């Protein structure tokens, strides 16, 4: 009888993913024995798991190991993104417990699902085979569908879960079809081999199958990062999902989508750069403009931040369109700072909400800045950073994204980006106007800080201000992580 010789397994490549999945499965078992009021401890255990994974990743920085016959790589690019995923997961977990308790949905399954979604994102960032990227995306999506509908007793959350599931499955079809066509045109699913096949055989933009594959894959990824015109699901899902999960969904999966998108386009299909950069140009302009203009007249702050997250996907697409080192470093830096500012902003939104009453209209924030001065200042810092106003990290990130575009000769794209960014200041400032210039109608006595919230907000404020004031170190790290 033949035996299958299993090739040497390089576990170091997927060690972080393995640790995190084992922690997730262990939590699933522990969950059975934990009483409903004490589910918060599972959150702390999962944060311990995340910290362990982080400690494992940091020594790997600077080296590039490949494994599993070239389907997975752990290079600086992957590590940088993995750190973003882990930070955003840990921060979301910190604000989850209290929210679930308040909404009467204190179920322990949420923590393993968050960890498992993070594993999926990590696989997407380090996959060098279209198959691994696709499986990572599926792992992420399946967990996210459940997380979006996690508040089972709330009909809006149910709607969010179902909507995300149906549209997500639909977009996965596009992605898979694009991958199949690319495989058909090049005969391989390995990203590096696709590039070398194209280079050797002179397959160019005249090959319709390859171009169609590229367009369909871009469609699939654009859906996942919520770029217009594939953004329709975003506001409904972000509004309906439990707020900590909205924070989680708006950062990690977006970053993972961009990581996989960047690896596929920059490494596998550099030969099609003229085609994909003009495609991304259109996507970037549409995404920024649709996101910002629609955000201008949103009354619900969760919806507003959903449209703002669409607009931010547009800014990142600007750096992506450039396709050069500066633009790519800008993507990495921006995703990192976006994690801090967005989760910070959502943490405040959770604090202002009450049971069954999310208080998520902009007018509900009237006078909030006077009742809770420290929280008010923190919220202002996050909003300033989202708007891209100097001392915050959001400014430096946008600066790099747009200067990458200028360097690559996309002057008009940068101009449109800056104009959009200026327009976005209006809706961020509007919240601040309500916070400071309107008479308070409520006394906000229900807003109670827990240590976990304090920690989350502290990390977020530091994460927004330090890279904003001292961008050198972070930019250097981002430049070392660029794919080229």
């Amino acid at each position, binding site marked *: 009888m033949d035996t299958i010789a299993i090739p040497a397994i390089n576990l170091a490549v997927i060690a972080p993913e393995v640790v995190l999945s084992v922690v997730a499965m262990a939590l699933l078992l522990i969950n059975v024995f934990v009483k409903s009021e004490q589910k918060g401890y599972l959150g702390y255990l999962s944060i311990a798991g995340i910290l362990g994974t982080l400690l494992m990743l940091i020594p790997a920085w600077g080296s590039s190991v490949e494994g599993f016959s070239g389907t997975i790589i752990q290079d600086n690019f992957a590590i940088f993104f993995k750190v973003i995923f882990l930070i955003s997961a840990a921060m979301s977990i910190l604000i989850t417990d209290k929210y679930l308790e308040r909404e009467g949905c204190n179920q322990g399954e949420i923590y393993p*699902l968050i960890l498992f979604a993070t594993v999926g994102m990590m696989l997407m960032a380090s996959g060098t085979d279209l198959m691994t990227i696709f499986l990572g995306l599926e792992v992420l999506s*399946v967990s996210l569908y459940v997380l979006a509908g996690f508040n089972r007793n709330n009909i809006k959350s149910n709607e969010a879960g179902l909507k995300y599931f149906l549209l997500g499955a639909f977009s996965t079809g596009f992605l898979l079809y694009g991958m199949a066509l690319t495989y058909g045109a090049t005969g391989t699913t390995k990203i590096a081999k696709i590039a070398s096949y194209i280079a050797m055989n002179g397959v160019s933009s005249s090959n319709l199958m390859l171009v169609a594959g590229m367009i369909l894959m871009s469609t699939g990824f654009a859906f996942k990062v919520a770029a217009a015109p594939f953004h329709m699901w975003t506001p409904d899902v972000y509004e309906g999902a439990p707020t900590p999960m909205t924070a989680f969904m708006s950062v990690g999966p977006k970053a993972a989508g961009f990581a996989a998108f960047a690896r596929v386009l920059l490494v596998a299909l550099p030969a099609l750069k003229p085609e994909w950069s003009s495609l991304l140009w259109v996507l970037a302009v549409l995404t920024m403009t649709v996101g910002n203009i629609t955000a201008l007249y949103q009354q619900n702050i969760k919806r507003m931040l959903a449209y703002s997250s669409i607009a931010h996907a547009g800014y990142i697409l600007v750096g992506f369109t450039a396709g050069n080192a500066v633009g790519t470093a800008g993507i990495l830096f921006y995703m990192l700072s976006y994690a801090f500012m967005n989760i910070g902003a959502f943490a405040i939104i959770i604090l202002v909400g009450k049971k069954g009453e999310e208080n998520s209209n902009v007018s509900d924030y009237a006078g909030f800045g006077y009742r809770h001065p420290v929280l008010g200042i923190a919220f202002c810092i996050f909003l300033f950073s989202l708007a891209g106003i100097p001392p915050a990290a959001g400014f430096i990130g946008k600066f790099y994204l747009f200067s990458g575009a200028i360097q690559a000769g996309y002057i008009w794209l940068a101009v449109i980006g800056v104009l959009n960014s200026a327009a976005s200041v209006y809706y961020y400032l509007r919240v601040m106007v309500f916070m400071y210039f309107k008479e308070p109608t409520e006394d906000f006595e229900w807003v109670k800080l827990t240590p976990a919230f304090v920690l989350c907000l502290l990390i977020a404020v530091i994460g927004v201000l330090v890279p904003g004031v001292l961008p050198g170190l972070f930019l250097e790290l981002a430049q070392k992580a660029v794919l080229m």
Partner: protein
Amino acid sequence: MEAYLFYILAVVTVIGTVMAITEQHPVHAIVYLVTSFFSLAMIFFLLSAPLIAMFEVIIYAGAVMVLFMFVIMMLDLGRPSEASRPFLRRWALPMLLGGIILVSIVTVAVNHISSPDTSRMISINDFSVVLFRKYGVAIEIISMQLLFAVVGALYLGRKRDDR
């Protein structure tokens, strides 16, 4: 010969799939989908991939469709009274499509077209070697994903807790 068979079967597949989408009655839609799976399996066979053809029949036409049927009957969505009325007209097209598939199978069997190119044929041995050597990690990922899909389904499908 194979080329003709391919085009005929491709048309059958497309018709079957389109009908599966447009058909109002869920049971009829499933019958069309099974038809399309069978002709797809024949196409795989003609492409010298008998193993994939087998998988198509056993897993998709067999297991998945039976599961669909089971769910439909369990939830009582079949509307049997409605289904039985104009019997012949309803079943003419699926029977025609199924007949074409049957004829093509017989043709292939009679002409001994084992597969167009035996040297390219993938045996179950080759398949499993590639699967476990090259894509071992993919299998692990899929199994983890199924585990968490089950966790998610169990969580969302549990009885409402009004606390």
